[in-house]
């Protein structure tokens, strides 16, 4: 006998959490966060593991002699926001951005050369995907100008664009950097657009003159470094094996003291044995004076000596949670804390992002190699497998389309049952390629970690929404400024 299922209410996909004395739901289909009252919780509990038709649900909620109209209104409200739905869940795959999505930022690899030989480097290390042999080592001014022109043309109606200078070691081609800023200021002004700049460096080549230039031109600086001397010098070494801490320390102090126009941030790469997040944070924030510090585990194949194993990642999470607690304490007092892994997540939670792709790579952002080849981002620079056009001939739309359709969260089977997908969307394309050989593969090795971290940040968000909601507004526009 064929049995047809009567339409009955089910809970939508959500992640519930309690913070600051209130209950909340993070609604996965939208990325929306609602504070809920006890009656909503009662509905969700009632539908836990069972389905109920409309009349039955309303009757149960109203109880003996209860108010049917009130119960009916409650059900209608939950239905309207799609926290419950009648029958099968509606499809909720975020739409892909239009094919001609305007470019917003270019990462110029002004050189693929580096004066350090960090053992874990994704550009030179064991898991590198770059194929730089026979290609230019330094970007020429002609290529850089063509990049700027492409950025302006492809930015369409955007009011402003962004250039990130990257390497190799970026400052090994500082002369070009200076010329590009000069050219791009003129070209964007002529096009009626604004422009902002940022730079990533290992800090070994910083001079007072360079710092003055960076400050004068409002170039945001990110320093790649790993912490106090014994941690920094573990992997961030010169080719002869000598550590770099002693060289960069005085330069960092000059940078932080004299760069007055933009936040100076540190980007820490966590590796086996370099997982003391709190200690690293204290050193960089309190001893050296960085404004903000962000952490990320190294990208590696599974078997490298410096990759962090599962226990190591548990430790990293515990350390992250300690700092996150401190971030919240600061925020409750209305003070900014420099741990950017929280700040970035909060800024995504406040807008309620529901990503079709994990990041803007290949969409609003592209990398440019010293030769002028375009790639999805700086991590794919000089990799023959991922060329996506050239600054002289433009974006290769077929390759871009292929990259973006692979990377769409809807194409990642494993993500479809995960509540954290609106923020994660499967994780880094480059990490996926190194680990699984496919940019469209979900970063399965981080799933539990990402869910736990997102949960931590949701708790912070919820507590602030109750106790200091105004503070959250500081993060509303954060992404647009970085």
């Amino acid at each position, binding site marked *: *006998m*064929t*049995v*047809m*299922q*009567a*339409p009955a209410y089910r809970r939508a996909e959500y992640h519930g959490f309690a913070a600051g004395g209130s209950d*909340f739901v993070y*609604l996965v289909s*939208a*990325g*929306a*966060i*609602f*504070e*809920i*009252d006890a*009656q*909503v919780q009662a509905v969700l509990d009632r539908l836990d593991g069972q389905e109920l*038709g*409309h*009349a039955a649900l309303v009757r149960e909620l109203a109880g003996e002699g209860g108010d049917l109209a009130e119960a009916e*209104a*409650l059900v*209608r*409200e*939950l239905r*309207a*926001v799609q*926290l419950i739905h*009648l029958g099968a869940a509606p499809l909720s795959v975020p739409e892909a951005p239009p094919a001609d999505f305007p470019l917003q930022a270019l990462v110029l690899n002004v050189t693929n050369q580096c004066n350090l030989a960090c053992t874990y480097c994704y550009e030179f290390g064991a898991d590198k995907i770059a194929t730089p042999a026979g290609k230019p080592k330094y970007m020429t001014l002609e290529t850089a100008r063509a990049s700027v022109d492409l950025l302006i043309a492809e930015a369409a109606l955007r009011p402003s664009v962004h250039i990130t200078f990257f390497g190799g070691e970026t400052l090994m081609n500082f002369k070009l950097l200076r010329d590009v800023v000069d050219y791009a200021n003129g070209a964007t002004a002529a096009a009626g657009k604004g422009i902002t700049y940022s730079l990533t460096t290992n800090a070994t080549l910083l001079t007072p003159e360079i710092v003055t230039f960076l400050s004068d031109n409002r170039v945001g600086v990110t320093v790649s470094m790993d912490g106090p001397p014994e941690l920094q010098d573990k992997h961030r070494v010169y080719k002869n094996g000598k550590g770099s801490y002693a060289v960069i320390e005085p330069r960092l102090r000059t940078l932080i003291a004299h760069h007055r126009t933009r936040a100076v941030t540190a980007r820490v790469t966590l590796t086996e044995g370099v997982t003391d997040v709190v200690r690293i944070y204290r050193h960089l924030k309190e001893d050296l004076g960085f404004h903000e510090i962000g952490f990320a585990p190294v990208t590696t194949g599974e078997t490298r000596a410096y990759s962090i194993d599962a226990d190591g990642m548990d430790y990293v999470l515990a350390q992250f949670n300690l700092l996150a607690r401190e971030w919240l304490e600061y925020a409750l007092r209305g003070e900014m804390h420099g741990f950017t892994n929280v700040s970035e997540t909060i800024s995504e*939670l*406040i*807008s*309620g*992002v*529901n990503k079709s792709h994990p990041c803007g790579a290949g969409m609003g952002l592209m990398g440019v190699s010293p030769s002028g080849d375009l790639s999805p981002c700086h991590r794919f620079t000089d990799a023959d497998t991922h060329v996506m056009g050239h600054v002289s001939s433009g974006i290769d739309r077929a390759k871009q389309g292929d990259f973006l359709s692979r990377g769409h969260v809807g194409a990642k089977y494993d993500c479809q049952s995960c509540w954290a997908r609106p923020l994660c969307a499967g994780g880094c394309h480059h990490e996926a390629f190194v680990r699984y050989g496919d940019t469209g593969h979900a970063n399965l090795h981080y799933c539990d970690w990402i869910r736990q971290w997102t949960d931590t940040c949701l708790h912070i*968000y*919820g507590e602030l*929404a109750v106790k200091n*909601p105004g503070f959250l507004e500081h993060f*509303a526009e954060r992404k647009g400024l970085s």
Partner: protein
Amino acid sequence: MKHLRAINKKARRIDDAVPQMEAANEAAAASGATPSDMEEDVVALQQAPRPHVPMGCTLSFSPGWEVDAGGGTAGLCQPVERDIYDCYVTCFWPVQVPDHVNYSPDWASNCATATKDWRNLDLVFP
């Protein structure tokens, strides 16, 4: 909204959209275009949980598709043979039942509209 408080931008957008959606739904329901699915006025005899159906009832006039509340045909208030009309008139299956070519050419002559005149159909005893 009374029970939910929007605490991020996306939630506020939903909050703003809800009154508009409800107004549109009410307008559609009032015009009869899309009856509300909250009223549960359409049920299937074989759905789960099973609706209350008096023994013997069927609302279907297509043979082979109607069953009684027990999933069989024995409890239908009319014998299934009554419904042979639909085989005779509309069925895609290439067989005549009853055999109006040889034995019962006038079997349906008193039944202009099955839903109204089905009582005029009689059993066939060849």
